């Protein structure tokens, strides 16, 4: 059947396509296309009426251009004109154009619907089919409104041609799926069911898809279809391979229809009628028997079609879950496929066995294949097949084989593909917990997990092990001993140190008899050096072990500082050490953790989430993160004792919650009034919640420390920061909002304009998975006062494109304020002392925000100074005092803010011991009120 005689040969179109193919560059192609578009536009606009052929040719060219990926904004009207042509090919092209380029232009829709209506009533089957195809392809609400009542009539009318019935059935299916409310059940529904008996196989094949969909939604109304489907299936299954003529596909009778029949039966429970059920079981047995017969052809199409039916039959057997004999046979059949040379079959067998494993009848039978599955996990070359094998091992795991399966999964983890490691880790953790007979095995397993794949052990996993150890006193001694041993290794993963530090902190006393435990602080100290937030952890455990090692520990910290001479970071650590020396925090820190309430494991929830639909939006992700934090209990009382110590003093701010940060971040706020008030502010301040995206992100952080700094369609950057004296720590949270991985993710802090700051950070992981959030910590030291802010440059690849972004980091001089309380007369005395003209900066400006007293107070507190009451003789005015701490000097600052409500103006005056500071503070603050 040579194409050349068939083609209606639109010569102009062929020439145009050739031209496009000959274009050497994208630019040349666009040029050629623009030329063509201009030509077509002029032809369509010209005064000379176009004949049908030309119109068809141009519409077809437009379609081609659209399919190349270019936008088309005209030609719709000409296409609609073609619909009413009585030349078939013109009509056909018109319909194709409409199907591909639907436009919700209502004027046009009415014309299209009119043309469709005419064709549907033309009684010309070819035209009717074209119209039905168009409705099925577009499937819009407007079309459903116009034709939902008409199509059922065509479908069941006695004189409708078979081909039209087929199109009508699937057309109705599409409308039912998009607008079920418009397709009304009626007299036609019972007649549709009887299409299962139609003698035309094509009609049955098309109609059954519609019946299946309708049965799912209205099972009672359609339940007569079960016996009809069984008898149809029985006839096909028992037919000789040649009986069905052209519906036989590579010696397999009607494979598509068989699969669809088996699918339909899965909408219902096993038939109640004994005869029907007997017949069905017979069919299923025949299908299983056929799988054992030698193939009638060596072609892969033959075995694919045959096995497609077999897998669908097995799905039905699993769905019924009531015929032990069939279930075991199905399982044996799949067992054979596990070793088949076709990768596709091995993949499907593993997938199908996963569901069989959950049936009580076949669970044992599935288990007999454990060695084969383990082998598949080790040797399959395709990662998607290995993934299926891992899934199956997980599904077949029970108390009897848990140790073997967990061991195999652990050893596989050492070489597993990065893409599936996190899921594997979760699965191992779940199995270990679920089937743990003795908890020492559980502890060993999780520690192994951290050792092998520490990077992939999420917080949920290691929080959970701590939760379990705390709740089970029979394992605490063993856990302390084991983590202690594990920490002796020359290099430990960060997560190991965290778990170790936490467990020793709680239960170190249980192994205090061990002479080596004296050295724990030493081993830990060096591992912890770079995990700054863990120093408090270290302290607790040293204190639990031996009271006297406290002193020794501080000494190590100090000598390490001098030895390594890495100035700021360590000094920050030392500061933390000192903080924990205070008698107040000691008491809190040394208290034992109360047991966790037993609830559903949060790691299970995490796995469920991972298995769910791939595209998880960022908000969902964060919701579930927050949820799991609550579920877990460990979230709030994270294993970092500093959280415990600080939890009385600080409340997580709402903006932090939005980011899903939880208390994984140690909130180190000592009980000083200054930081307490900062936190109160961030809850009360209305500006804090107005977190809408705008480009002055920087200025929004002058009076607050937490929130979203930047957000676009790809990336969200959240900030949480804390300052003390001349030191600060900023947590940056980079959230990937897409479902695609960011590659080569790098961040750089640029200090060119801001040499007065010392900023240190560790590089971030170069890959950010879709939906994931990564964290970076910046340790900031203020050497002397400064005006310009550091910049943060972010580069990454999204898809192929390089994204480059530079933001101003909201580090401002006021962050290093220490509030100073003073009485009225002191204030004015100092005010007078700072009377040199350059020491004062003043600005009069219009109010940009509400002049509400509480709002203003909150902002001033957020600024970091002390807000002084009863100082200014005018109670409307605000006065504040504070000292800016830098490494080289301290700068005293006084502030006065005089609002004029009537004029909606402010006068702001600053007097500082250093004139550059007055100036800078005045600039920053003038934009805040």
């Amino acid at each position, binding site marked *: 059947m040579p194409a050349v005689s068939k083609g209606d040969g639109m010569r102009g179109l*062929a020439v145009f396509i050739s031209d496009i193919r000959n274009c050497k560059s994208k630019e040349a192609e666009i040029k050629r296309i623009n030329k063509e578009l201009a030509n077509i536009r002029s032809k369509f606009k010209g005064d000379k009426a176009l004949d049908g052929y030309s119109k068809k040719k141009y519409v077809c060219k437009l379609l081609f251009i659209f399919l190349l*990926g270019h936008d088309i904004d005209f030609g719709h009207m000409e296409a609609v004109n073609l619909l009413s042509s009585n030349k078939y090919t013109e009509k056909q*092209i018109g319909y194709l154009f409409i199907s591909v380029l639907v436009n919700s232009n209502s004027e046009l829709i009415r014309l299209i619907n009119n043309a469709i209506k005419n064709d549907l009533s033309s009684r010309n089957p070819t035209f009717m089919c074209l119209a039905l195809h168009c409705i099925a392809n577009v499937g819009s609400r407007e079309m459903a409104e116009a034709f939902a009542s008409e199509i059922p009539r065509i479908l069941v009318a006695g004189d409708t041609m078979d081909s039209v019935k087929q199109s009508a059935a699937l057309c109705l299916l599409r409308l039912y799926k998009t607008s079920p409310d418009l397709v009304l059940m009626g007299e036609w529904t019972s007649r549709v069911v009887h299409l299962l008996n139609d003698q035309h196989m*094509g009609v049955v*094949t*098309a109609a059954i898809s519609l019946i299946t969909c309708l049965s799912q939604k209205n099972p009672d109304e359609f339940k007569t279809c079960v016996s009809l489907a069984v008898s149809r299936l029985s006839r096909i299954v028992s037919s000789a391979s040649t009986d069905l003529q052209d519906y036989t596909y590579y010696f397999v009778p009607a*494979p*598509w229809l068989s699969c669809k029949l088996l699918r339909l039966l899965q909408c219902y429970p096993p038939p109640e009628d004994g005869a029907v059920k007997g017949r069905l079981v017979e069919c299923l047995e025949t299908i299983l028997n056929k799988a054992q017969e030698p193939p009638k052809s060596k072609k892969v*199409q033959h075995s694919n079609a045959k096995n497609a039916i077999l897998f669908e039959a097995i799905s039905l057997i699993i769905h019924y879950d009531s015929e032990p004999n069939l279930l075991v046979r199905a399982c044996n059949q799949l067992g054979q496929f596990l070793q088949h040379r076709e990768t596709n079959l091995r993949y499907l067998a593993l997938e199908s066995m996963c569901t069989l494993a959950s049936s009580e009848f076949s669970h044992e039978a599935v288990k007999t294949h454990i060695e084969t599955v383990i082998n598949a996990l080790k040797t399959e070359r395709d990662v998607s097949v290995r993934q299926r094998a891992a899934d199956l091992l997980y599904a077949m795991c029970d108390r009897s084989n848990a140790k073997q399966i967990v061991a195999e999964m652990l050893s596989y983890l050492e070489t597993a593909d990065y893409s599936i490691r996190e899921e594997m880790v979760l699965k191992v953790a779940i199995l270990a917990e679920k089937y743990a007979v003795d908890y020492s095995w559980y502890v060993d397993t999780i520690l192994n997990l951290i050792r092998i794949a520490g990077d992939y052990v999420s917080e949920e996993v290691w929080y959970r092990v701590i939760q379990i150890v705390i709740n089970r006193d029979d394992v605490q001694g063993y856990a302390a001993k084991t983590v202690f041993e594990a920490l002796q290794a020359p290099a430990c993963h960060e997560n190991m140190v965290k778990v170790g530090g936490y467990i020793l902190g709680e239960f170190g006393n249980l192994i205090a008899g061990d002479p080596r435990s004296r050295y724990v602080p030493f081993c830990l100290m060096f591992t912890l050096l770079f995990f700054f937030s863990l120093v408090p952890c270290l302290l607790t455990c040293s204190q639990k072990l031996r009271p006297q090692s406290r002193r020794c520990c501080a000494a190590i910290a100090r000598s390490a500082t001098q030895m390594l001479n890495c100035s700021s970071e360590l000094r920050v650590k030392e500061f933390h050490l000192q903080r924990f020396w205070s008698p107040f925090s000691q008491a809190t820190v040394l208290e034992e953790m109360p047991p966790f309430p037993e609830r559903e494991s949060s790691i299970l929830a995490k796995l469920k989430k991972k298995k769910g639909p791939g595209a998880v939006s960022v908000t969902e992700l964060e919701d579930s993160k927050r949820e799991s934090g609550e579920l877990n209990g460990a979230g709030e009382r994270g294993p970092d004792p500093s959280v415990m110590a600080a939890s009385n003093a600080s409340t997580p701010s709402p903006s932090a919650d939005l980011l899903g940060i939880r208390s994984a971040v140690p909130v180190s706020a000592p009980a000083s009034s200054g930081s307490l008030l900062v936190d109160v502010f961030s809850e009360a301040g209305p500006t804090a919640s107005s977190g809408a995206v705008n480009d002055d992100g920087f200025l929004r952080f002058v009076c607050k420390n937490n929130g979203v700094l930047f957000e676009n369609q790809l990336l969200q950057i959240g900030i949480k920061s804390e300052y003390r004296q001349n030191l600060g720590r900023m947590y940056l949270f980079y959230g990937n909002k897409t479902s695609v991985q960011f590659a080569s993710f790098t961040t750089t802090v640029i200090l060119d304009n801001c040499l007065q700051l010392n900023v240190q950070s560790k590089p971030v992981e170069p890959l950010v998975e879709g939906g994931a959030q990564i964290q970076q910590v910046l340790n900031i030291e203020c050497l002397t006062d400064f005006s310009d802010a550091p910049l943060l440059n972010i580069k990454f690849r999204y898809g192929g494109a390089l994204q480059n972004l530079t933001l101003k980091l909201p580090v401002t001089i006021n962050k290093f304020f220490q509030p100073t309380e003073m009485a009225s007369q002191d204030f004015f005395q100092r005010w007078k002392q700072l009377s040199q003209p350059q020491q004062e900066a003043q600005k009069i400006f219009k109010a940009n925000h509400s002049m509400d007293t509480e709002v203003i107070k909150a902002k001033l507190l957020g600024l970091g100074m002390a807000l002084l009451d009863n100082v200014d003789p005018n109670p409307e005015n605000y006065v504040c005092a504070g000292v800016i701490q830098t490494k080289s000097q301290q700068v005293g600052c006084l502030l006065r803010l005089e609002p004029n409500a009537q004029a909606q103006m402010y006068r702001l005056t600053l007097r500082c011991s250093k004139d550059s500071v007055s100036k800078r503070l005045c600039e920053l603050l003038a934009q805040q009120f």
Partner: protein
Amino acid sequence: MMQFMLLFSRQGKLRLQKWYVPLSDKEKKKITRELVQTVLARKPKMCSFLEWRDLKIVYKRYASLYFCCAIEDQDNELITLEIIHRYVELLDKYFGSVCELDIIFNFEKAYFILDEFLLGGEAQETSKKNVLKAIEQADLLQEVRPALTGKAVIIIII
């Protein structure tokens, strides 16, 4: 139900796209880009199925062309593989040893044949004879026009 079918070349050029679910043009382009990349990166002996978002992808390569379908979770992978094969057979029979160029130059025909075979993402008519008969009948209604020149490459071996 099949959600969409894509035909693309080894160079990643999209030759035919058929969408059975309403999606925006932007989303379509994104999906296409992502899938073409994923499928082209796979090695020849790998299995023809993969999980992608919450769908299953079934693909097969015929000479220089990849045929790639997205189906739903409960759909049958093997029968979808044979849907692809039957479509290839239909094209082959209609064009006479079909090649990529036939599909480029007669893209509208490729769409018409597909519409006769699959409608709304479901098999409408699986008999090769019946599908071709419908197309032939339609061709008979056409006016005769000068033929295209001979074909350049024959790519499909069945």
